[in-house]
């Protein structure tokens, strides 16, 4: 039975936008109990599609043609009141950001109860019982406690479970999930995906699942629709699309998904140690004004590793594992509590901040967020030249070097006088790399350098980093949460959990034979790991 049938749907964008339609001529069907994944990169129109179905389009975006039928009933043209009655009862929706999707000042139980109240279903007693049932069903421990809690008292995964409970409270025919796991850690993501999958089987719910991640698609999709710039370029059964893509774009996207199989190891014997870290400790502890000491968080505990010239060490862990703190401690962006850090032949720890400045050129960093890592008020040329200038290189030389570097990272010397906002995310990340390289560092700390990028751009940046490493003999500390990425670029991988390195092995060995249980659970959680995906 077809629950959702979208036929030739077009959504018009406001006049000044960069294209006429957010979505154009889209058709798709979902049957009861089936999951359809809509895949695409940012700006493909996948979210708009979801919002159109539930009638929550931004006021500037208007349906311009086609039809959306839910269980045979036309949704386009329904009045606000009719649409409202439909929401929650016939369609439920989960959003991407669990941290902001729940009302921060309402108790969890009230937010679930509200769904029943809004649709005048059940009496008070039944509502309460149903609420507890739901919380139990979505796998939350101690529903009584959770029901009375406020959202901020729950973890991200727990909140997303609450969201699912809210969305499924009235057993709707259709569940729309808009990137519901993107903001979650990989192990949590696996649990949530599993939960959604179980529930739709149990209740026969049709699921419209929006994602950018082919791993996720491989994990849960029955059907797939690939969107590019508002057009559906390919659709069909999941296994077919994943294994025998017909459209170039689909092929390119799939090819860009990093494989979990690491490339053959480099020969690094005889290379000198570029970075030695021993005994690194860092604890965050709240400094209370009147002795009210807040709880302490151990971000680094006895961390130790060595990176050779030309080697890439991956530092892998989930959020809060301390991996970013370790990277920043090595750079002395954060002062470690204790530890030995040696860059080349220079001891980096213990150097007074004043004398640190000239040493800084030895070790540089590439940041995660390409939008936040470039000063919006300076030209790209200045941003890159600032480094050498800070190290007393004459201005003219520094600017010349900046132009060379822009060439090197593939942007062209002429971009030097432009401002960051004129560049795309991937281009900005190239600028960030050029800035780091401007000082000819020995060591590069790359903190999640590709996690904010679309998958096709991701691959290009990873290639660039590897290429530069080969040419310049850089030692790289590669901080990431993404095991697929780590598999592709790292020679060795250190897995971090709660501030400690629990396992440090050459990449191939780690993937083939993980020793620590945490490493094993991480590997198991990688979406689509067990599904074969078409190789490039």
């Amino acid at each position: 039975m077809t629950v959702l049938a979208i036929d030739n749907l077009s959504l018009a964008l406001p006049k000044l936008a960069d294209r006429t339609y957010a979505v154009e001529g889209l058709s798709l069907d979902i049957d009861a109990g089936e999951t359809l994944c809509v895949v695409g990169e940012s700006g493909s129109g996948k979210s708009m599609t979801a919002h159109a179905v539930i009638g929550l389009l931004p006021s500037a975006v208007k349906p311009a043609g086609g039809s959306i039928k839910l269980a045979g009933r036309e949704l386009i043209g329904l009045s606000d009141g009719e649409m409202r009655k439909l929401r929650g009862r016939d369609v439920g929706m989960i959003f991407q950001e669990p941290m902001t999707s729940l009302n921060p000042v309402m108790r969890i139980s009230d937010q679930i109860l509200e769904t029943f109240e809004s649709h005048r279903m059940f009496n008070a007693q039944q509502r309460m019982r149903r609420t507890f049932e739901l919380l139990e069903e979505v796998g939350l421990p101690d529903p009584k406690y959770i029901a009375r809690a406020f959202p901020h008292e729950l973890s991200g995964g727990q909140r997303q479970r609450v969201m699912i409970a809210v969305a499924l409270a009235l057993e709707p025919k259709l569940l729309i999930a808009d990137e519901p796991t993107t903001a979650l850690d990989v192990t949590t993501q696996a649990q949530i995906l599993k939960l959604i999958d179980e529930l739709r089987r149990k209740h026969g719910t049709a699921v419209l699942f929006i994602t950018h991640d082919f791993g996720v698609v491989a994990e849960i999709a029955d059907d797939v629709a690939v969107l590019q710039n508002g057009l559906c370029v390919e659709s069909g059964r999941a296994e077919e699309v994943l294994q025998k893509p017909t459209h170039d774009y689909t092929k390119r996207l799939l090819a860009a998904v990093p494989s979990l199989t690491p490339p053959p190891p480099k020969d690094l014997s005889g290379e000198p140690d570029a970075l030695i870290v021993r005994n690194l400790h860092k604890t965050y502890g709240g400094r209370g004004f009147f002795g009210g000491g807040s709880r302490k968080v151990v971000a680094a505990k006895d961390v130790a590793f060595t990176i050779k010239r030309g080697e890439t060490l991956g530092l892998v862990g989930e959020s809060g594992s301390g991996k970013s703190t370790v990277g920043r401690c090595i750079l002395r962006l954060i002062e470690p509590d204790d530890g030995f850090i040696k860059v080349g032949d220079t001891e980096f720890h213990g150097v007074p901040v004043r004398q640190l400045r000239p040493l800084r050129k030895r070790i540089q960093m590439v940041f995660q967020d390409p939008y936040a890592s470039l000063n919006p008020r300076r030209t790209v040329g200045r941003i890159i030249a600032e480094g050498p200038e800070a190290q007393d290189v004459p201005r003219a030389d520094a600017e010349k070097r900046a132009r060379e570097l822009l060439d090197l990272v593939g942007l062209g010397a002429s971009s030097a006088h432009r401002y960051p906002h004129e560049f795309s995310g991937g281009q900005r990340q190239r600028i960030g790399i050029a800035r780091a390289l401007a000082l000819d560092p020995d060591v590069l700390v790359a903190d999640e350098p590709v996690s904010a990028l679309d998958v096709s751009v991701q691959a290009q940046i990873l290639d660039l980093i590897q290429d530069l490493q080969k040419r310049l003999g850089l030692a790289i500390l590669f901080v990431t949460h993404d095991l697929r990425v780590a598999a592709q670029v790292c020679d060795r991988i250190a897995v971090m959990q709660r501030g400690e390195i629990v396992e440090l092995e050459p990449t191939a060995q780690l993937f083939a034979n993980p020793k620590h249980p945490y490493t094993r659970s991480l590997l198991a959680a990688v979406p689509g790991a067990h599904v074969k995906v078409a190789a490039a």
Partner: protein
Amino acid sequence: MPLLRFIAGRLVKGVIVLIAIATMNFFLIRAAPGDPASVLAGEAGAADEEFLRQLRQQFGLDQPITTQLWIYLTDIITLDLGFSYRQGRPVLDLILERLPATLLLTGAAFIFSLTLGIIFGILAARRAGKWSDSVITTGALFFYATPLFWIALMSQIIFALWLGWLPNTGFRTIGAGYTGLRYALDVGLHLILPATTLGLFFTALYTRMMRASMLEIAGSDFVKTARAKGVPEGRIVRRHIARNAILPVVTLAGLQAGQIVGGAVLTETVFGWPGIGRLMFEALSQRDYQVLLGVFFVSSAMVVLFNLITDVVYRVADPRIEVGR
């Protein structure tokens, strides 16, 4: 317990700030030309050195300034705010006499402006872009941009002089001898004009803030969640948008409440309201140091107190903030 510790901590901090303020004000006021004796001389229309000397000795102004400061600070710790030079009465008595009037005025203005501001803010935000929104925002902008004393004078002329509906000055009808309910009604009538005038600016301010806050919250993810649940619009506005939008407005209002107490000088002056704002202004021109310092002390203490209350209320109203931190 953590709440108590939080309050205790804030109180200790508040006391330190208050003592610092008292010290600064002490020197600030002494930097002014002339002293209470010269004012009395200036007003008496006749004076000689002997007269001035007697007064200064009586006021203790012939002692070294550090001694005076030390005496003042040690007294203040025991809540002894000294003696008024001019009125020969304890400053604390003078202030306590005037404080209720000020609290009544500012309290009424505060409640009036906060209530109306929130209601208008919600109305405007719900009808953003429509004519009723324009009317409210234009009105708010008008009162926001018009000097308070101007409105005070205009309302006096219109409502007291032309229409004769309301008394224009004072706290109550002198000599009427009202008691009980009749007295309360009388005070209430006298209160309307000054409280409204004082409150209008803040009404405008809160209306604008509430509107902006509503619009900001309206774009939140959780509002979308509520829509996706099929919650009726009115309920979304009440329970989701307004409930969250009100927090920053109430916080700001609370922080301002303390300031209003000391800032009602203009209103009190124009409407002859016997509050501490006027007491301060008179004490200033009369160089009645102790009274001036006392008013500053008490009104600063009000600010500290209101800030504390706001914080506590905020902590209770917003579950995200851990009580005690």
